[in-house]
C-alpha cells in the first residue's frame, strides 16, 4: 500500500491521463471495426510508445486493451459482426435485441457488464498478482523449467482443434528463438551469412509480422462477409439499477470465469466469453430464451471477456508469461521500456505495477 502514493503521482501526470483518454478512444474505435481486433489496436499504438515514458506507455496500452475488448460488442450488437473475436458470443443475443429495436439497451447492458467484469478482474489482479509474485521469488531453475514446460503444454490445451498444428507452431516459435547468438557459447546460429540475422530475431517485429500480417492473409483468403442492414434504435441506454437484480449471479459467475481463464497462459477472451455464455445458458432460469435477444446472454459474454483483461495480466506481470496474444504484445512494450515482467517486477518496479493497476481502474 505504501506504493499507492508514488503510483498515483505517476498516473496523475497530463501525459499519462491523455494517454489513457486517447487509448480508450482508439481502442473502442478499432475494437468496433470488424476485422481489426485487440492485437491490431495494440500493434498500431505500440510504435507511439517508443517516444513515451514508462507510465504513459503502459497506461496507453492498457487503455487500448480494455476498451478494444468492449468496442467489439458495438459492431456485434449493431451489425451482427463481432469487432473482435472476444465479442463473437455477444452477437448471439445482442443482435436479436437490436433487431427488436433495443439496440440502445443492448449497448447499455454490454457497457455495464464490461465495466463490472473489468473491475472484478482488477480486484483479482491486485489481490492475486503480489501473492503470486511472492511465491515466484522462491522459484529456482527447476521450478522455472517446470513453468516453461507448463506454458508450452498450454499450446496443446488451447489448440484442441488441431493439436499437431499447435505443437508445430510452438516448435517453430522455439526454433526462431534459436536464430542468432547462442546464450551459452555466443556462437551465431542460422544467420545464413545475413548480417541482420546475426543478432537474432527481435520480439516486436516477429509479433507484428505474426499477428498483423497473418490477419491480412486470412482476410485475403476469406470471402467478404454478407450481412443485412438492421433497422434499429441506435443509441445508448443504461439499464436501471432494479433491472440488475435477476442477473447478479450471472454477472459474478461470468466475471469469475473470465478472470480465471485470463490467468491461464495461452488462453484468450473468446474462450472465456463462450464458456461463460454456455454456462449462463445452462444454469439460468431464462436459458431457453438465450439466442432470441435475452440480455443475460449479452451480460454473460461481455462480463467474461472484459474480466479476462485483469486476469491475463497476472501471469504477464508476475511470471512473465503472456496470458493471451494481446498481453504478449504488451509484454514486448514493457521490455522495450526497460521493464522486465516476471518474478522481480514487484520488487524492482512496484510503483509502476500499482500505476498499471490504477490505470486499469
Amino acid at each position, binding site marked *: 500500500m505504501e506504493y499507492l502514493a508514488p503510483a498515483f503521482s505517476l498516473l496523475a501526470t497530463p501525459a499519462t491521463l491523455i494517454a489513457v483518454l486517447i487509448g480508450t478512444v482508439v481502442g473502442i474505435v478499432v475494437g468496433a471495426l470488424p476485422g481489426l481486433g485487440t492485437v491490431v489496436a495494440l500493434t498500431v499504438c505500440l*510504435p*507511439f510508445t*517508443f*517516444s513515451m515514458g514508462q507510465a504513459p506507455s503502459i497506461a496507453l496500452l492498457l487503455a487500448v486493451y480494455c476498451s478494444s475488448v468492449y468496442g467489439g460488442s458495438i459492431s456485434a450488437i449493431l451489425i451482427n459482426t463481432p469487432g473482435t473475436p472476444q465479442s463473437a458470443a455477444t452477437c448471439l443475443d445482442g443482435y436479436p435485441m437490436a433487431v427488436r429495436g433495443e439496440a440502445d439497451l443492448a449497448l447499455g447492458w454490454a457497457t455495464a457488464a464490461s465495466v463490472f467484469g473489468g473491475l472484478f478482474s482488477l480486484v483479482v489482479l491486485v489481490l492475486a498478482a503480489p501473492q503470486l509474485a511472492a511465491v515466484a521469488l522462491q522459484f529456482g531453475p527447476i521450478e522455472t523449467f517446470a513453468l516453461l514446460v507448463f506454458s508450452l503444454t498450454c499450446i496443446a490445451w488451447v489448440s484442441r482443434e488441431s493439436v*499437431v*498444428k499447435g*505443437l*508445430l507452431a510452438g*516448435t*517453430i516459435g*522455439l*526454433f526462431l528463438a*534459436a536464430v542468432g547468438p*547462442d546464450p*551459452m*557459447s555466443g*556462437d551465431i*546460429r*542460422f544467420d*545464413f551469412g545475413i548480417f541482420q540475422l546475426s543478432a537474432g530475431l527481435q520480439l516486436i517485429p516477429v509479433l507484428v509480422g505474426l499477428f498483423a*500480417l497473418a490477419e*491480412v*492473409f486470412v*482476410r*485475403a*483468403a*476469406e*470471402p*467478404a462477409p454478407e450481412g443485412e442492414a438492421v433497422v434499429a434504435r441506435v443509441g445508448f441506454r443504461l439499464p436501471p439499477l432494479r433491472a440488475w437484480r435477476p442477473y447478479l449471479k450471472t454477472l459474478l459467475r461470468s466475471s469469475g470465469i473470465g478472470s480465471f481463464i485470463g490467468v491461464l497462459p495461452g488462453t484468450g477472451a473468446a474462450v472465456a466469453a463462450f464458456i461463460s455464455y454456455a454456462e449462463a445458458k445452462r444454469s439460468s432460469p431464462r436459458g431457453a430464451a438465450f439466442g432470441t435477444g435475452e440480455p443475460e446472454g449479452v451480460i454473460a459474454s461481455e462480463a467474461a471477456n472484459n474480466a479476462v483483461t485483469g486476469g491475463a495480466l497476472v501471469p504477464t506481470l508476475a511470471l512473465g508469461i503472456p496470458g493471451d496474444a494481446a498481453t504478449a504484445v504488451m509484454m514486448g512494450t514493457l521490455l522495450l521500456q526497460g521493464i522486465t515482467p516476471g518474478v522481480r517486477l514487484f520488487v524492482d518496479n512496484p510503483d509502476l505495477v500499482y500505476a498499471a493497476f490504477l490505470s486499469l481502474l
Partner: protein
Amino acid sequence: MDAVYGGVLLLVGALLMLSTFDPRYQGFGIGSDVSPMFFPRILLCLWLTLSTVILVRGLRAPADGWPRQMKARAAGVIVAVLACTWAMTVVGFLLAMIPCFMIVSVLLGYRRPLPILALGLLVPILTWFVFTTIIEVFLPTSPWFDLI
C-alpha cells in the same frame, strides 16, 4: 490446404536440418558437453515429424472445398507482401509501399480506381510522415532521395 502447409513446412524443416551439418558449425561448442546445434536439431526433428503428420493427414483428407479464387487471392497477397518487403530494402519504404498498397487493394477485390489511387498515395505518405517526423522511427530510404 493442410497438404500444402505440411509439404512446405517439411521442405523448409529438411533444409534447415541439412544446414545444421554445415562445416561452418563443426567448430562450435568446443569445450562444451554439447554443441550449440544440439537443441535446434531436437526442435527440427520435432518439426519434421509434425509436418509429416500434417502432410499425411492433408493428403488423406477430402478436398477442403476452398474456392480456387480464394486460394489464388491469398497466394497473391502473400507474394505481394514478400515482394514489398524485399523492395523496401532496395528502393525505400515509401516507393515500395505505394505500389504495394495499390496492388494488394486490387487483389483484395477493390476495383474503383480513384479510391485505390488516393488511398494508395495517402496511407503510405501519412504512415511515413508519422513514423519519420512524429515518433522519429526512421524507415528505409531510397538510394536516390535523402528524405524518402
